[in-house]
């Protein structure tokens, strides 16, 4: 049942991130961490249209995409703890997530950096005559980077099976759109002018997202070429870290409250009966408990791993 799956997906993201926020102050998760709380509907809705054979990439704010795509929660939390059972054995941290079994190829920390990677994955899929698609999750600021335009041009030129999903949450760090993009800019219209099929939607409505995404994914599978979806949404907490920061001056409490009223989770809960939600909540809390227990129990990687995985045949040594 689609609603329940979407709700489950969103709740898993919300619950693990709330727990991260709660426990971040313990100083055991020692890496920059960008939470998606408030934005879960996009990840959940888009990934509902995908199978594990489809591929995805993302950026610095990737927990939601990784989880919704099927990435292991245990490996996520362990990665934040810098443990050897983390999805990158502790080498990558929050901004570098990967779960190839789930089709989540990777997220990286340079804004725009995975956009061409996602297009390259689509090139490989096309060459291999796969009917899988590649999904590129990106933020509004990523549409300011040159590499976005270069990548889109090539995707359109070669009719590649790639879906660009832009979460427009109005901010890049503490910078509103007004200091970065011209007034009146509509990102999906720019995408359209570049030759993408583009649409926009409510990023806080998981069903609406899922609807647009499944349309776009079908179109791609039918050979219609690359698609672009822009979703308006809002991040609740600070850009990086666990706290609320509506008081520091770059946005207003009123704006935040207006967006919080659009919380995608109650919107979907309203369509389901209370008992099922209770059961779900319990299951999700348990999964989160388990993931944190797993992460805490996991060992740190051995010191020498700081110098491995450089190339296929070389390990470095400390202090050259």
């Amino acid at each position: 049942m689609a609603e329940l799956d979407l709700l489950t997906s969103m709740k898993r993201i919300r619950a693990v991130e709330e727990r991260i926020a709660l426990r971040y102050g313990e100083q055991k998760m020692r890496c920059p961490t960008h939470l998606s709380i408030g934005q879960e509907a996009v990840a959940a809705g888009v990934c509902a249209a995908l199978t594990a054979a489809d591929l995805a990439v993302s950026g610095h704010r990737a927990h939601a995409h990784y989880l919704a795509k099927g990435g292991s929660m245990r490996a996520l939390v362990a990665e934040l703890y810098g443990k050897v059972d983390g999805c990158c054995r502790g080498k990558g941290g929050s901004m570098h997530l990967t779960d190839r079994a789930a089709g989540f190829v990777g997220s990286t920390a340079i804004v725009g950096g995975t956009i061409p990677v996602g297009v390259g994955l689509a090139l490989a899929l096309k060459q291999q005559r796969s009917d899988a698609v590649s999904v590129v999750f990106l933020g509004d600021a990523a549409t300011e980077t040159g590499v976005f335009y270069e990548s889109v041009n090539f995707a359109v030129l070669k009719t590649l099976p790639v879906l660009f999903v832009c979460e427009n949450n109005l901010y890049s760090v503490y910078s509103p759109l007004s200091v970065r993009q011209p007034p009146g800019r509509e990102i999906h219209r720019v995408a359209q002018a570049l030759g993408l099929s583009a649409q926009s939607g409510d990023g806080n409505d998981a069903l609406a997202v899922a609807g647009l995404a499944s349309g776009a994914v079908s179109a791609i599978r039918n050979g219609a070429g690359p698609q672009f979806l822009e979703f308006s949404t809002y991040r609740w907490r600070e850009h990086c870290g666990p706290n609320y920061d509506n008081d520091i001056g770059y946005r207003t409490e009123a704006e935040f409250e207006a967006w919080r009223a659009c919380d995608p989770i109650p919107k979907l809960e309203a369509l389901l009966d209370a008992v099922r939600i209770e059961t779900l909540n319990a299951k999700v809390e348990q999964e989160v408990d388990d993931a944190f227990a797993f992460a805490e129990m996991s060992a740190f990687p051995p010191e020498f791993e700081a110098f491995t995985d450089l190339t296929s045949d070389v390990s470095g040594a400390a202090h050259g």
Partner: protein
Amino acid sequence: MAEMSYAEAIRDGLATALRLDPSVICYGLGVTDPKGVFGTTLGLEAEFGSDRVFDMPTAENAMTGIAIGAALGGLRPVLTHQRLDFALLSMDQIVNNAAKWRFMFGGSASAPLVIRMILGRGWGQGPTHSQNLHAWFAHIPGLKVVMPTRPADAKGLLLSAIFGQDPVIFLEQRWLHNARGETPQGDYRVPIGPSAQLHSGDDLTVVSSGYLSIEALHAAQFLAANGVGCDLIDLRSLRPLDLPAIRASLVRTGRLLVLDSGFATGGIAGEILAWASETAFSALKVAPARLTAPDAPEATSPALTEAYHVRAEHIAARAAQMLGVTLDVEPLVSRRRFAHDTPGDWFKGPF
């Protein structure tokens, strides 16, 4: 003179420049936001207006070219990147345009601009928020590259960079932003090129830069207390290098140890060793040595950064080894009072 932090000294340098000359402009991601690039740009927009101090789109390459054009048009731009790693997007503009403009147009014009880059370290910065790629910039004719250690030098070099005639890469290690020191007020300038001597001694020449100079200073003081005298040369400028100062010290001590926060292979430490062995071979009493970052990116997990960085104890131990003396460097380790992946107790993340 006023006691201030490195971040405050940079802010003071920027404010001084903006006040002195209406052609100075200052921009970069977050320059006008509530955090003000680790405090280094706080309040500047309010004082100097949003025409001169402004945020920018995430577009590092164009914004560098725009600084070049602005400089050619008579402005004195200061562009700031919160991490050096982001500036990799702008290497074309830095190397093919900024560094070469004077040369390729036969000296008829130049692009005086300053690109501040902050170098992350520890606390989960990880592979792409911690790169110390100063050797890259130092390899490029036409650039000047500075990496100040002390607040006063940060301010003084920044003002020289802003009012000079050349493109300058201004490197700030994140771990220095809270370091405090006496800093001259007003239009204080430190010339780009000469090094600073932070410690004196006749047994060994230690060459260092940036945050490593602070580790080196701990080591030098510890060594001195144990009867070993080091010259500690804080380079300040990585292009040009103050080779005369190194030579003067080396001919006296006969021993050279060079520290470098960058990757080992092809780094600046290697350049100095090469130069010394080439041009001061007969002065060398023992093999020259270097202590650098390993040939690997910095990982995120705290378990993987402990053995990664060069610290005072490694420097002291290597110095002792070069002198053939036995020395227990454990006190340098045990006197440290904060987690190895932070610059001090004040640092609690998230970045």
